[in-house]
């Protein structure tokens, strides 16, 4: 693992000292061994803080949105999911490609900070190697089709309506409306989220199961054709709601209905729900 870490520090040091970027976003150690939160390094003497271990779980791309109009360029360490997140942000017009120096890292999967096993999102990862980068660290690997990642969805689909209804009602009863799933998601880059627009009345502020479900369903539909399957929403949810099952259900349907489409793999192909085809499946005749 530390071969990558040494390379990361070397590259970050160069970029900062040459002034190519005025900050680098990577990961650093937290207080405990299983914590490697994002790190923001602004001067080359501090690159020693950068680390690469099995707990670098948080996505780095969405931090580009914190101050979208800052002048300087950002050096961004990007694993497979971060690269797709960058494509996502570029395609949504929130970030300009020329403002980022992408340092791709061929990721081999991270560990869950509680179970210490391979994190769920990494088991299901199809594009471990970054799809867009300026320079690359590690051995590139071809994308892996992992159809079994839809297994949980397929099982749930077979269940009776009542059972599915109870399952999701119970899950969303746990929701504490902390909006961590929305704030970590690279596909959620609205300037003002529908959940915050109380005057329009999309969503009540009350914390109870019905409003939680409306928020969960609406957010799932909003990112249906743009979710890059980075799995962060499910990871950061403090009460463990299986949000990726909702997203995977939509992704599976969209791929079956409108042909193979992987969000964020390139920044040209428009998301399927924003286009149409004359010979789309006809179910409403």
């Amino acid at each position, binding site marked *: 693992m530390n071969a990558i870490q040494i390379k990361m520090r070397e590259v970050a040091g160069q970029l900062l000292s040459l002034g190519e970027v005025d900050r680098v976003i990577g990961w650093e150690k937290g207080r405990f061994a299983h914590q490697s939160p994002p790190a923001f390094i602004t001067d080359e003497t501090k690159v020693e803080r950068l680390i690469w271990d099995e707990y670098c779980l948080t996505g780095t791309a969405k931090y580009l949105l914190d101050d979208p109009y800052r002048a300087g360029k950002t050096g961004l360490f990007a694993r497979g999911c971060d690269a797709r997140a960058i494509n996502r942000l570029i395609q949504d017009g929130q970030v300009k490609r020329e403002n980022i120096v992408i340092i791709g890292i061929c990721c081999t999967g991270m560990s869950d900070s509680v179970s210490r096993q391979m994190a769920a999102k990494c088991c299901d990862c199809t594009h471990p190697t970054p799809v867009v980068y300026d320079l690359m660290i590690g051995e590139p690997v071809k994308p892996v089709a992992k159809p079994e990642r839809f297994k949980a969805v397929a099982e749930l689909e077979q269940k009776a309506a009542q059972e599915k209804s109870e399952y999701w009602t119970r899950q969303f009863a746990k929701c504490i409306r902390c909006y961590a799933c929305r704030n970590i998601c690279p596909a959620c880059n609205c300037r003002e989220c529908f959940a915050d627009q109380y005057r329009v009345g999309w969503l009540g502020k009350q914390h109870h199961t019905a409003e939680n479900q409306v928020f969960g369903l609406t957010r799932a539909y909003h990112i249906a054709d743009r979710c890059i399957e980075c799995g962060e929403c499910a990871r950061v949810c403090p009460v463990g709601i299986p949000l990726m099952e909702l997203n995977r259900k939509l992704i599976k349907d969209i791929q079956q209905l409108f042909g193979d489409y992987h969000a964020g793999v390139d920044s040209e192909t428009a998301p*399927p*729900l924003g286009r149409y085809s004359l010979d789309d499946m006809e179910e409403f005749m």
Partner: protein
Amino acid sequence: MALMTEANWEPKVLAFCCNWCSYSGADLVGLNRMKYPENVRIVRVPCSARVNPQFIIRAFQRGADGVLVAGCHPGDCHYSTGNYYTRRRFLVMKRLLEFIGIESQRFQARWISGAEAVKFRDTVTKLCEDIKALGPQRKLRDQK
């Protein structure tokens, strides 16, 4: 409200109808004095592409027992491409609603032209019968 007590529960079905085709199709049912159950309430929208899937979630949350989205046949849209987007959006939304436990009969999307009065009447009548069989919709209901 008499309708709301569970004993003599009468289903309430919401229908979003596009102004140029299905709304005028619904009018034509009236002109021909054809009959269908009283449970349907029609909301007029300029085009089926105006119907936001969030309206459907909202209807079920407030207590709708069934929802219908009706638009022009693909190719006939007054705004040329509106219903192509409607088709994609509700192919996906229909499956999501089923996935969270709303019975498939409760949400229907249909292409109904301005001349297809019979098709509108039959669609609505069948929808109401299915919903009566299924019973009241509890799924996303607000805690009262």
